[in-house]
C-alpha cells in the first residue's frame, strides 16, 4: 500500500539578492496505490523542487504530505528517488551501487546480496555486476539508478527526468522497460518529464504544472488500456492526449 496525498504545498527559495521567490504556490495532488502519475510543466516551474520535497530532501514552507495517511517529514525507506542527473557512485561497481541503500540500512550481507542479484536480473544487467559506472552506457546507468532506488523496496518511486540524457531509441526502450518493471514491482510512481509523449505513454494520469509559482493547472487521465506496446504511441487516442497537454503548456509558457 502506498497512497500519496499532497495538500496545499508551498515553498519559496531565497534569491541571491535576499528576496523570497515563490516556486510552489499551492500544489495539491494525489497518487493512488500502484498508480503511475506523470508531471509535466514549463522548465523551471518547480518540478524537481516538488519531488525533492516529496522525498524529504527539502522542506516545504506550508501544506502537508501524507503517505497512507501518515505525515512525512524527511527521507524514509517508504520512498525511493531516481535522480535526474547520473548520480551513481563512481567508486562502486554496479552491484555495490544497487546495494548502497541496503548497506546504509545495515541489512545483513547475505540478504542484501540476494536482493541485489534479483534486481540485477529485473533491470536486465546480468553479467555487468562488477562493472564501474563509467564502463556503462547511459541506458545501463539509468537501469542501475532505478535498481538502486528499488532495492530498499519503497512503496513510492520518485523519478526526476530519468531518461532525459538518453538518445531517442534508448529512451523508447527504457520507457517500455520501466512499464514492465513497474507492472512487476507494483509501485506508486511519480514521474517527471519534459517529453509529453513520454508522460502520456507511461502514465495513468498526467498532472500539468503551471508556470512558476506553480499550481496544478490540469490533470489529464490517460485511459489507454495496458499493457501498452511502444506502437501505442502512434494511436490517435494517445496523440490527441499529447496535443491537449501541449496546448495547456503552451498557454503557460506564453503567459
Amino acid at each position, binding site marked *: 500500500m502506498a497512497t500519496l496525498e499532497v495538500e496545499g504545498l508551498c515553498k519559496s527559495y531565497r534569491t541571491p539578492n535576499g528576496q523570497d521567490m515563490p516556486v510552489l504556490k499551492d500544489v495539491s495532488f494525489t497518487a493512488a496505490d500502484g498508480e503511475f502519475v506523470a508531471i509535466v510543466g514549463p522548465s523551471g516551474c518547480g518540478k524537481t523542487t516538488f519531488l525533492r520535497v516529496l522525498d524529504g530532501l527539502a522542506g516545504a514552507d506550508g501544506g502537508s504530505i501524507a503517505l497512507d495517511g501518515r505525515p512525512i517529514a524527511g*527521507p524514509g525507506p517508504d520512498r525511493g*528517488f531516481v535522480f535526474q542527473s547520473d*548520480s551513481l557512485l563512481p567508486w562502486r561497481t554496479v552491484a555495490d551501487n544497487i546495494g*548502497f541503500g541496503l548497506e546504509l540500512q545495515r541489512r545483513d550481507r547475505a540478504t542484501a546480496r540476494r536482493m541485489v542479484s534479483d534486481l540485477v536480473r529485473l533491470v536486465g544487467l546480468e553479467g555487468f555486476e562488477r562493472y564501474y559506472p*563509467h564502463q556503462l552506457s547511459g541506458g545501463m546507468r539509468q537501469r542501475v539508478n532505478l535498481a538502486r532506488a528499488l532495492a*530498499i523496496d519503497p512503496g513510492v518511486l520518485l523519478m526526476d527526468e530519468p531518461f532525459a540524457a538518453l538518445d531517442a531509441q534508448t529512451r523508447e526502450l527504457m520507457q517500455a522497460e520501466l512499464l514492465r518493471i513497474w507492472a512487476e514491482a507494483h509501485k506508486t510512481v511519480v514521474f517527471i518529464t519534459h517529453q509529453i509523449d513520454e508522460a502520456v505513454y507511461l502514465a495513468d494520469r498526467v498532472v500539468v504544472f503551471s508556470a512558476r509559482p506553480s499550481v496544478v493547472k490540469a490533470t489529464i487521465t490517460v485511459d489507454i488500456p495496458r499493457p501498452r506496446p511502444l506502437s501505442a504511441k502512434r494511436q490517435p487516442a494517445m496523440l490527441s492526449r499529447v496535443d491537449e497537454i501541449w496546448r495547456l503548456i503552451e498557454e503557460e509558457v506564453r503567459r
Partner: protein
Amino acid sequence: MKKASVLSLIGGVILWELVARFIVKSTLIIVPPSHVVRAFVDLVRQGELQTHVYVSGLEFVVGFGLAAVVGVLLGLAIGVSDLVRDVLEPWLSALYATPVVAFAPLFVVWMGIGPSSKVAVAFLLAVLPIIINTSAGIRTTDQNLVDVARSFSATRGQVFFKILIPYALAFIIAGLRLGVGRAIIGVVVAEFFGTRAGLGYLILTSSQLFDTSALFVAVVILAGVGVLSVVALQKLERWLAPWREFAIRT
C-alpha cells in the same frame, strides 16, 4: 614504471655523462655519472653514507608521517566544519604564502641541532598542501551524491565515510604527493643550518670541499627517495581506488 619513462631516464643519464665528459669538462661545475658512482662506492665503504641516509631518512619519515596524519585529520575537519575552517583559514593562507623554509635556522636555534628541528621544518612544509588538498576534496564533493545518501536516510557518519571520504581520496593522495617533495626540501634545508649528520650535511660539507661528486651522490639519493615515494603513493591510490585507474583510461 612505463617503458618510455625508463628509456627517458637512461637517455638522461647518458646525455649527462656526455655533457660532463666532452662539453663542460670542469669537475667543479658538473661531474659525469661515472664519477658519482665511484664517489658513492667510496662513501659506502667508509660507512659514512649509511649514517647520512639513516639520519635524513628518519627525519623525513617522522616529519612526513606526522604531516600526513595531522594534515589529513585537519583537512577533514576543515572540510566538514565551517567553524574550524573560519578559525584556521587565515593562518593557513598566511603560512602557505610565506616561504616557511626561511624559518629553518630559527628552528635549529630553538630545538637544537638534533633531528627534532629537521622533523619540525619538514612537517611544517609538508602539512600545508596536505591540509589544503584534503579540505578541498571534501568541499568539492558532488552534492548530488550526498543527496543520494540522504535520500536513503543516511546518518551524518555514513555520508562522511561512504561519500565524502571516497570522493576526497584522489585529492588527499595528490596532497600527500606534494607533501613528499616539500618534506625532503625541509629536511635538507634544516640540515644546512646545523647538524652532525644527514644528506644535507653531506651536501654542505662536500660543496665546501669542492667535492662535487659527493654532492651529486646526496642529490641523486634525495631524488630517488622522491620518485620512490611518489610511485608508492600511486600504488596506494590504485589499491584504494581501483575505479579511478579505469576512469582515467577511458
